[in-house]
């Protein structure tokens, strides 16, 4: 689904000179649009929503765990209170028990307390069943009951046969038994408390750990969210800024899918593609406008140049009419031949211009540089001659062929030559030199050298700007170099300038030789 950008911009017709006109361009943009829209939608908004939902769910989970933990702590505290109460009652009972053995007080109070302890234990035992465990519960109950039974037994003896209370052996025996049992239940109750304190501390610590851990997890989740969202937006923004740069440089390839889903940025991409279409159309119009202007300039030269063969024809015709009878057959034939030759010459003078002016669809062809430059120079010849300037062409032998739109390239070279003519003074020369480009392999350089007034240093950076011109009002549109640069950029090349005020300028057009211009279809 996501297609590589190059797959769309590759020439779709590998045969000789594949024609890519305005309809093709619209087709390509339509294709890009379909590809962009064919993907599943995954909005940035959706991602933000999902991220927030995840964070919320996580917070909810943490809260539940914490609430459970607090509940557990509360239970532990309650149990501790219960164990405490139990201990107090048992201790109280034992105090009365001690009094009994010392002063023979009655055991009612002791029994009351121990019954209270029993009641406390029984009422709470059920609710703390999970904390206490069944066997322990039974043990405690048995111990309490054992102690209570002994006390009750003693009370029985006190009530029925108080004399027995003074039987030292019997009493000593029962006292030690009771003490034993009493100590056991105290130990048991205190043991319960102690164990519970440890448990409570552990639960509190666990709760703290859960707090900390959930904070860390939350932080990690938030960081991951921020990273994913940030990367998603930043990546797209970076890509769009690179699109803007390449569009500004004149590369009008439409934006094609790069991801497996579409979102809000897809709408932006579609809008930019529409803009590219408009820009491409406008540029085509601009190139055409500039070409018409160049044709206008050339026409003046052609019109003047035509006067020479016309004059020859006129003189010859008139002399034929005047001298017809006096001329020999041979002389007449020679004069008629002159007329025919001069007519052919006139045809050639117009023909070049007509070829250049003819509006043709952008055609990518293998071009022989020498022929292209020779044709261009012939086109500009009248202008050059009119200005009293000489033009020289030097082409390195067996220069590799280039691919491109011959007419557009001719427009560029013509523009450079006419600029050079404007910059030159009468009697100077212009050199057009084609050679391999020394700084990059598989590139050729075409230099247009003039020895004219040069370009002032402070304007050299703006000479490729649209509407920038140093010519007088009405003499230049300021579009030539801007349009030329656009054309050369589409051929995968560049125009370099090297100028010194007062001694001339060198414009160098660098063009790739073997590779197909990547984005040529956007003409």
């Amino acid at each position, binding site marked *: 689904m996501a297609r590589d950008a190059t797959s769309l911009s590759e020439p779709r017709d590998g045969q000789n000179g594949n024609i890519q006109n305005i309809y093709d361009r619209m087709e390509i943009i339509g294709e890009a649009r379909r590809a962009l829209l064919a993907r599943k939608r995954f909005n940035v908004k959706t991602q933000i929503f999902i991220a927030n939902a995840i964070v919320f769910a996580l917070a909810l989970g943490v809260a539940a765990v914490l609430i459970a933990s607090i509940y557990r702590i509360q239970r532990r505290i309650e149990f501790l209170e219960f164990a405490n109460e139990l201990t107090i009652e048992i201790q109280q009972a034992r105090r009365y028990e001690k009094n009994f053995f010392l002063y023979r007080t009655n055991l009612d109070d002791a029994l009351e307390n121990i019954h209270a302890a029993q009641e406390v234990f029984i009422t709470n035992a059920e609710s703390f069943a999970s904390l206490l465990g069944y066997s322990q519960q039974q043990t405690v109950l048995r111990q309490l009951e054992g102690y209570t039974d002994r006390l009750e037994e003693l009370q029985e003896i006190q009530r029925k046969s108080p004399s027995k209370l003074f039987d030292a052996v019997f009493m000593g025996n029962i006292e030690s038994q009771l003490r034993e049992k009493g100590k056991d239940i105290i130990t048991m109750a205190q043991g319960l408390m102690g164990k519970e304190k440890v448990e409570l501390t552990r639960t509190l610590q666990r709760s703290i750990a859960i707090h900390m851990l959930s904070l860390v997890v939350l932080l990690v989740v938030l960081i991951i969210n921020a990273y994913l969202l940030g990367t998603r937006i930043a990546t797209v923004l970076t890509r769009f800024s690179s699109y803007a740069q390449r569009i500004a440089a004149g590369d009008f390839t439409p934006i094609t899918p790069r991801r497996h889903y579409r979102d809000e940025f897809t709408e932006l991409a579609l809008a930019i593609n529409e803009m590219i279409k408009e820009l491409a159309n406008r540029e085509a119009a601009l190139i055409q406008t500039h070409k018409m202007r160049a044709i206008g300039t050339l026409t003046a030269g052609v019109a003047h140049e035509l006067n020479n063969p016309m004059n*020859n024809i006129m003189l010859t015709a008139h002399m034929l009419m005047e001298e017809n009878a006096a001329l020999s057959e041979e002389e007449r034939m020679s004069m008629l031949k002159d007329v025919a030759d001069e007519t052919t010459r006139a045809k050639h003078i117009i023909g070049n211009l007509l070829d250049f002016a003819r509006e043709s669809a952008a055609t990518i062809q293998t071009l022989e540089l020498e022929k292209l430059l020779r044709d261009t120079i012939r086109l500009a010849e009248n202008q050059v001659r009119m200005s009293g300037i000489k033009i020289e062409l030097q082409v390195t032998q067996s220069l590799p062929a280039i691919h491109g739109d011959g007419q557009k390239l001719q427009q560029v070279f013509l523009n450079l030559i006419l600029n050079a003519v404007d910059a030159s003074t009468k009697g100077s020369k212009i050199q057009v030199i084609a050679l391999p480009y020394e700084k990059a392999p598989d590139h050729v350089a075409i230099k247009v050298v003039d020895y004219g007034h040069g370009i002032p240093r402070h304007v050299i950076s703006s000479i490729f700007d649209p509407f920038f011109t140093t010519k007088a009002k009405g003499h230049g549109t300021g579009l030539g170099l801007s349009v030329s640069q656009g054309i050369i950029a589409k051929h995968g090349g560049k125009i370099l300038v090297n100028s010194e005020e007062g001694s001339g300028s060198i414009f160098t057009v660098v063009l790739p030789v073997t590779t197909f211009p990547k984005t040529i279809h956007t003409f």
Partner: protein
Amino acid sequence: MSASLEILLLDDEPIVGKRLKPALAKIGCEVEVFQDPIAAVARIKQKSFDIVVTDIRMDEMDGMQVLEIVREQSPRTKVIMITGYAMIALAREAMEKGAFDFIAKPFKPDDLRKVIAKAAEALGSKVDFSAANDNN
């Protein structure tokens, strides 16, 4: 005054000289034809012509320079400029520099003959214009 008017004709288009030489001979002019301005200038320095007819746009030297040299060498010589690049500015420049007249290409042989007759008159000579169309 000798019967023939001495004329130097300079144009880098060979056909111009080829056709105009007999055309002017017919009205009693003695014409020397040149295609190379350098050679023509050398000849001008040797001999004072009555009339010099020169093209303006030529490769080695243009007609304006020829005009200046003629004016310098022989002030009495009438210079007639012919050019395919007929522009007001050029014509004005030629006249200011002392050209006798200015003819735009394309022209008929008679157009030049008329100008030459005018120049001859200015020189105090006479041209037998009627001879031109004798054969018709």
